[in-house]
Every structure is written in C-alpha cells, then in structure tokens.
C-alpha cells in the first residue's frame, strides 16, 4: 500500500477506535497541541456529531433516560455500528432496535420504537394511494385473493406500553410518569409533511400487519381469536384505511 491510502487507513482507524496514538505519529507538531490531542479533536467530533444526530431523532427517549444513560447507549450504538451511508439522517433509524436489544427497559424500548418509526416514516417516499374503485365490484373470491401494498411512509407497531399517550404528554411539556404495562397498537404514517399516529385495536393491527406482509386478504383476515371483531368491523376499517391512503397503487 502506498503512503496516501495507508495514512487515511491509520487516521480512519483512530477515529473509529478512539485510539489517537498510532495515527499521531503522522501528525505535525503544533506549539499548542500535541499530535495525539489534534487527532483527538476528530475522534471526539465523530462521536459528538453522531450522538447529536441520534438525540435529534429520539428527544423523548432522551428526556426519559437522561443525558448520561442516553449517551451511553448512543455511544455503544456508534461503536457497534459505524455509519456506512452518506445520509446522516438515516443513521439513527436502527437505534430503536439497538435500544430494544441492549437497554433492558421495556418501556424505553417501546418509546424508541415509536420515535424511530416516526423518524423513519418522515423520510420515506411518497406513494400514490390505492384508488377505492380498485376494490369496488370485486367478487368475494377476487377480494379474498387480492394482495395490497402498504403506503411506503407507514409502519404498524405492537407495543407493550401505551407510549403514544406518554409521548403526546411529553411533547406537550409535561413530565409524565411511566405508565403501567398495557398493550397498545399503532399505525404511524406521514401525510404531506406531518407524521400521524392512529391507535388500532389488536384485531385491526393483526389484520393490517398481515396485509402489509402482502398476504392475500382472505389469509390476512383468517385470525380465529378475532373472528367476530373482524366480521363486525371490517367494512368500517377498510373505509377508514382507504380514506387515509393506508395502501398504495
């Protein structure tokens, strides 16, 4: 390897590992800062920049955990997942899954899942909503064999805690107490530039989650434990889902 790539490798390794010493030997002396202190400016800047990016997507989680605990998690995430993409806005999205795997705090994990979904959905592509006429006049058999595609900018979430209410209260400037465990289901989607959250029943969530996996409608509806609820609400659900553009062309 010639000098130039080797130098970049050394310096890059220093930034990622946080060990300035090997790279410092290639840095000019400076009357005010030793070479390793100069390298440390980049080492610290890397972590600070990425931590700030994660903080900006998870402000409620930051408020819940506090600076120290949040930054500890963020730095562990950065250590385990050096960024690969050029879009810094996307880097924090998998942080929610990291929190779930490492935080040992089910409520924090749910809150991270919700804030992560909001951040992700905010950036996703627009999609042309499915025209309701596409479902009109179909025979029951044709409807049953239909597969529907979810709107790009959307997520369905199954949560152990009612984090949506907690998030609303926190955003309103309150300091809400951690709620009791109580399953909650949400549809998160972006309309124009606003991310909306729609509470779902467990049955509606299960149907939507299956539809979003592009199972045929008949399979998506085949949930014996919710058979009666589905039968009673299906028409109203579809009316709402079509009106809000849950499905794309």
């Amino acid at each position, binding site marked *: 390897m010639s000098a130039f790539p080797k*130098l970049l490798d050394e310096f890059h390794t220093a930034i990622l590992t946080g060990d300035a010493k090997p790279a410092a030997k*290639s840095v000019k002396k400076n009357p005010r800062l030793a070479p390793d202190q100069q390298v440390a400016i980049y080492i610290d800047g890397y972590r600070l920049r990425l931590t700030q990016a994660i903080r900006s997507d998870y402000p409620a989680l930051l408020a819940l955990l506090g600076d120290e605990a949040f930054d500890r998690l963020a730095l562990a995430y950065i250590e385990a997942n*050096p960024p690969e993409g050029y879009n810094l806005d996307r880097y924090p999205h998998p942080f929610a899954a990291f929190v779930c795997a490492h935080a040992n705090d089910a409520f924090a994990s749910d809150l991270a899942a919700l804030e992560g979904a909001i951040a992700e959905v905010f950036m996703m592509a*627009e999609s042309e909503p499915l025209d309701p006429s596409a479902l009109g006049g179909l025979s029951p058999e044709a409807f049953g064999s239909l597969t529907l595609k979810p709107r790009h900018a959307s997520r369905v979430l199954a949560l152990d805690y009612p984090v949506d209410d907690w998030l609303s209260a926190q955003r309103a400037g309150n300091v809400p107490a951690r709620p009791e465990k109580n399953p909650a289901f949400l549809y998160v989607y972006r309309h124009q530039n606003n991310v909306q959250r729609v509470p779902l029943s467990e049955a509606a969530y299960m149907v939507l989650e299956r539809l979003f996996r592009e199972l045929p409608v008949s399979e998506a509806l085949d949930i014996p434990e919710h058979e009666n609820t589905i039968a009673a609400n299906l028409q109203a659900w579809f009316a709402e889902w079509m009106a809000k553009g849950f499905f794309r062309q």
Partner: protein
Amino acid sequence: MAGFFVSMENRFAYPDIGFGLGLRSPHYDTILEHRPKKIDWFEIISENFMEAHKGYWDFLADLRRDYPMVMHGVGMSIGSTDCLNLDYLKKLKALADFLQPPWLSDHLCWTGVHGKNTHDLLPVPYTEESLRHIVERIKKVQDILGRRILLENPSIYLEFTVSGITEWDFLARMSEDADCGLLLDVNNVYVSAFNHGYDAKKYIDAIPSDRVVQIHLAGHKNYGTHIIDTHDAHVLDDVWKLYEYTIATKGKVSTMVEWDDNIPAWDVLVAELEKARSVAQNVRKAA
C-alpha cells in the same frame, strides 16, 4: 433581488448572485410565507434533499421560482481512497438536474474509507500523490455530473508530516489541473491559519482569484489552544476583517453566511447577511 448583478470576475463566467443564506428547517415557514427580499439566494445542503420525499422537492421548486438555489454537499468524499460512490453521484446529479443550481460544491476532504462514513470533513495530506488522486477524481465527478464543481477549503485541526505542499498551493494546483472552481471559506482560512500558525492573508493571496466562485462566512469557537469551526455564532471581527481583505483582493464574489447550530431568529440571520453586504459594498466604494 437586492444586489443582483452579473460579474465576470471568475473565469467560468458564473454570475455574482449577491448575498445568500443557508436554507435551514427552523426558517422554512418564514421563507415560504414572506419570500424575504433581502436574501438574494439560498444554499441547500445537497444530502438533506437527495433522498428526501417529493414534498421537499416541491418545496425547493417553489422557492426556486424566487431565488437562485446553490447546492453544497458534505458527502462526496473526493479525497477518499474508496471508489467514487456512484449511487451518491447519481442522486446528486438527479437533484442538480431538477434544481438547476447556478453551481454545485463540496469540500476538499474525505469522509471515510472501506465503506464507512465518519460524517466529518477529514483533512487530506497535501502531497503529489494525493494531488494526482484527487484531480483524477474531480475530473471523473465532473464527467458524471455533467457540470463543473467547486471545492471548499475545509477547517483543519491537524497537518500530516508528509504534507510537502501548502494547503493554498494544493488548492491552486488542484483547481488548475482539474479545471474546477473554488469555494473560499474565509472563516475556514482563519481557523486553519490560527490552528497551524500560518498567515491567513498569504493564504488568500495565493488562491487564484479567477477560480473563486463563492465565499462562505461563519462563526467559530476559540478554545485557546485551537479553534473549531462551529457555525453556531456570529462571524467574528477578525473574520470580517479577513473577508474585507478577500473582497479587496479578489473582487466581489457571491457570499453566503453559514449558521447551522444554535440557529438564531430570522432577523438575526438577515442582519448578519446585511453586514456582509455592507462590508463588501464599503470595500467596493473605497476601491
């Protein structure tokens, strides 16, 4: 637009589009609603929009009707030893083709190697080997994009022992050999000069005037031992003086004030830009 006139002071005949601000989200609503007349143009961060949904592109198209929109990137990584990121360049070109900016810029830096990205503007060793490497990459990028690019001098917090070329000579030779333009960040010159003990005016003097298409101004933070380019405060007096010197020696150049962190009220930003306009006008009057 206030202050708009065509200047042919750079060799590429890019117009002098006056005094601009960065297009930043805290002020989107103000800009959309009031279409402020005191701002001649806006600079966008390319990466903020390249993968954004259609609503953002519609927003840019809307503003484009009233303002020239310049594209400024932080992710080209022209100094990296990785292959050029063709996916990145494809998306950058798509945005440029859509927006038709007066010009498009990035930095003389690298952001990572081996497929990783530090999201920082890392310093390049200034050697004959790196110069050849970077010049070839600029030429390829310009071919792919179908347009000339400008590269900005970064703020530098260290210098490599192997660097046998000064930063200003590197920029001059690079721009000549690759036939690209330069975005002269006056604050970055000040920061790097402080950090490494060289003469900022000598740096400015050595930059080929006819390749400077745009100027950046920004705030920084002085830690005593070193300065960090923070973009979170007013432009400091010493940088205003260096800007005055730059305009006096380079001629009037499209100028933009960067303020990316602790972004202040809209009126504060406009006042900062008006100060730049006033400094430049006073230099021109005195000339």
